[in-house]
């Protein structure tokens, strides 16, 4: 019970902190995704702040209290502004659901319910969670097997997992355990569940944001919830689902042309997994650059938007980047050059388009996006988000074909959950393309 209470309070504190920050940069009103983005940004900023305070010698508890105090102060000071943009939900919104919408809702609820059941009843089970993520988090919580001193074997919990992996979820889990007074299996993986919720509601709210069409939003939320690997990742303690969550929300901010919020959310991808730095930051930079290339504004405005995005993406994670540089901690534990593997294209196609791990999903999305190209190519934002997806998919191909990651393509392991990170973005692009065809009921849309 205490664990669950801490879980809820921690969500509220993160949301308050994030909402305080969002209040400085939001332009729209009453977008559902602001609530989700507030939590996500608060998650990042709180854990970064705790990281800095831990480096300065403070304990996890004291660091958390300082971060919470900041959240309360900022949230309190900005509360009047926060009230203006947070969504106003009413249960009467559910009254007029059609039968097929109820089916979609029921299927989504099943997924969420099952994920929570796994979280509450099953132990940490999968290898990377036992080692790199919850293993190191437990070492940080215990204190004995953790150090920020690079000269000792306990450095960044490296006896338990790769020290190169970022600390976002590790600090989160260790903090929750500290508040709880002990470690447990719920704490070990609760952020996975939160990221799953962010993805489902993020995809739904973003689709609604541009289409103002309820069935499309529900359909998008359902499709992403039913991605097979999400079933396990929602309660596994891995961070691929975290990257996907931050990336989905970043698309939502990008569609609103809120570049700073986009950058802050991409900072989240970098703070939970190195894929964020290597793949997602550059892809989103490319998407924004493409948008700005054709935008009706001055060159000063174009450069300003790119600078805002880049600044917002890097400043939060700068302490981690500096720390890593000072202690010669790389991005990957494996040194890798570029070597082309001739069988990689066929293996990649097989993995993505003919795997039970994703079934008909990727072939449908890819063909739909390609087939609707004449539509979204005419729309500045359509081009932008489509190119982000294409850049990410291409980067995945290069990564798994030309580096030591090829072994994970060959043995059919990491490739599937890496591609899973793109699922939310793909669904948004599909529905955006469909929307552009003019099937939306609403005329109040963000189309450029």
């Amino acid at each position, binding site marked *: 019970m205490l664990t669950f209470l801490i879980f809820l309070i921690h969500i509220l504190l993160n949301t308050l902190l994030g909402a305080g920050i969002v209040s400085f940069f939001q332009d729209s009103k009453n977008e559902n995704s602001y609530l989700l983005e507030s939590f996500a940004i608060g998650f990042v900023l709180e854990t970064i702040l705790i990281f800095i305070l831990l480096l300065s010698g403070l304990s996890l508890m004291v660091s958390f209290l300082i971060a919470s105090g900041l959240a309360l102060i900022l949230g309190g000071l900005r509360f009047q502004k926060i009230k203006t943009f947070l969504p106003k939900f009413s249960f009467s919104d559910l009254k007029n659901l059609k039968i097929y919408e109820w*089916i979609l809702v029921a*299927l989504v609820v*099943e997924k969420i319910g*099952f994920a929570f*059941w796994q979280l509450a*009843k*099953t*132990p*940490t*089970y*999968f*290898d*990377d969670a*036992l*080692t790199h993520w*919850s*293993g190191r988090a*437990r*070492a940080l*919580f*215990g204190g*004995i*097997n953790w150090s920020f001193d690079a000269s000792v*074997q306990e450095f960044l919990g490296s*006896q*338990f997992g790769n020290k190169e992996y970022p600390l976002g979820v590790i600090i989160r889990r260790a903090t929750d355990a500290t508040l709880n007074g002990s*470690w447990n299996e719920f704490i070990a993986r609760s952020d996975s569940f939160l990221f799953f919720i962010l993805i489902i509601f993020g995809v739904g709210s973003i689709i609604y944001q541009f289409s103002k069409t309820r069935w499309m939003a529900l*359909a998008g939320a*359902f*499709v992403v919830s*039913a991605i*097979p*690997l999400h*079933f*396990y*990742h929602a309660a*596994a303690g*891995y961070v691929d689902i975290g990257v996907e969550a931050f990336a989905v929300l970043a698309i939502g901010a990008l569609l609103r042309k809120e570049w700073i919020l986009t950058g802050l959310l991409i900072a989240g991808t970098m703070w939970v997994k190195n894929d964020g730095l290597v793949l997602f930051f550059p892809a989103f930079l490319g998407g924004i650059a493409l948008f700005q290339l054709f935008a009706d504004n001055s060159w000063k405005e174009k450069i300003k938007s790119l600078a805002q995005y880049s600044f917002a993406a890097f400043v939060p994670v700068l302490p981690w980047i500096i720390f890593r540089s000072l202690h010669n901690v790389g991005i990957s534990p494996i040194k890798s050059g570029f070597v082309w593997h001739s069988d990689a294209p066929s293996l990649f196609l097989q993995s993505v388009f*003919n*795997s*039970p*791990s994703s*079934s*008909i*999903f990727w072939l*449908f999305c890819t063909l*739909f996006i390609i087939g*609707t190209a004449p539509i979204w190519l005419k729309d500045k934002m359509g081009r932008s988000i489509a190119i982000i997806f294409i850049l990410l998919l291409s980067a995945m191909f290069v990564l798994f074909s030309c580096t030591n990651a090829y072994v994970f393509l060959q*043995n*059919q*392991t*990491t490739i*599937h*959950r890496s591609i899973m990170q793109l699922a939310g973005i793909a669904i948004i692009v*599909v529905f955006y393309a*469909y929307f552009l*065809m003019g*099937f939306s009921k609403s005329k109040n849309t963000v189309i450029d």
Partner: protein
Amino acid sequence: MKGLLWSFLTLFAIPILAQVSINHPIASNFSAAGTVLELNVPAQYNGSSLLIGWVNTQGQQSAIETSLQSGKHLVELRNNPLWQGTIQTLAISLPGITGTVKKPSFGDEISLFLNPDLQTPRSINFINGYSLFSVKWSYILYGILFLLIPVFYFLQKMTFLKAILLSFLVAWVLFDLRNVANHVAVQQNIRANDFQIAPFVGMQTLIDKADQNIGEASWSQEALPGVYHSYTQYNLAEKSYIRFRKKPRLQDKKGIQYILTQDPKNRQVVDSHAGIAIVKTKKKKK
């Protein structure tokens, strides 16, 4: 029938053991065409991983892994490209399981489709999927999708793009309904094992014993097989841990006081469970 001793190096799908012997024969000298394997699985193996290996008359060897359900358990092999021709020997990795190779009845086909895809250490990376009448479930969904497009387009008078999208949504709902059924099966399986999941069933006892014995001391572990290593390391992460090094001079000066190992040799064993011993190291004389 001749027994056949197989040794496989670590399969990417099975991080549990470095070497597995498939030496419990089931059948020999039969035609694989259109056949499946029916196993009678004792309750003790519910949720366990089983390796099934075979060699055909051309000398081609193959093996697959499956998660077992107690009772009658059907294994779909018709989609395997090496399940063809005359099979010289078919064997499995666990004793006490009987089986037969047969052509499936209609009821068997439905059972095969409803075979649960239980949670294994591999599930985080890969889902095994299903097949119906030996056709991959994905292909059936594609068929449904392509059949629905003209229905929506011509009969429902939808635009082509809407017809495609709705056809995909219908197919995805069907896909998800099969997965929902599997969620129930996974849940039932986990409940049946008292919320423990293979291969860690019973491992909590080892953790409890290690926790009690180690106390405030330092501990380490010699290379335990596969995911057991990660599991024990995680569950004892709050205790002073020193990575085991084969050369003692490289060892941390604090010294390891307890070691978890499968090979205790002549060392003092203070407790053990599931084939893993908790060994107390000798104190250095001053």
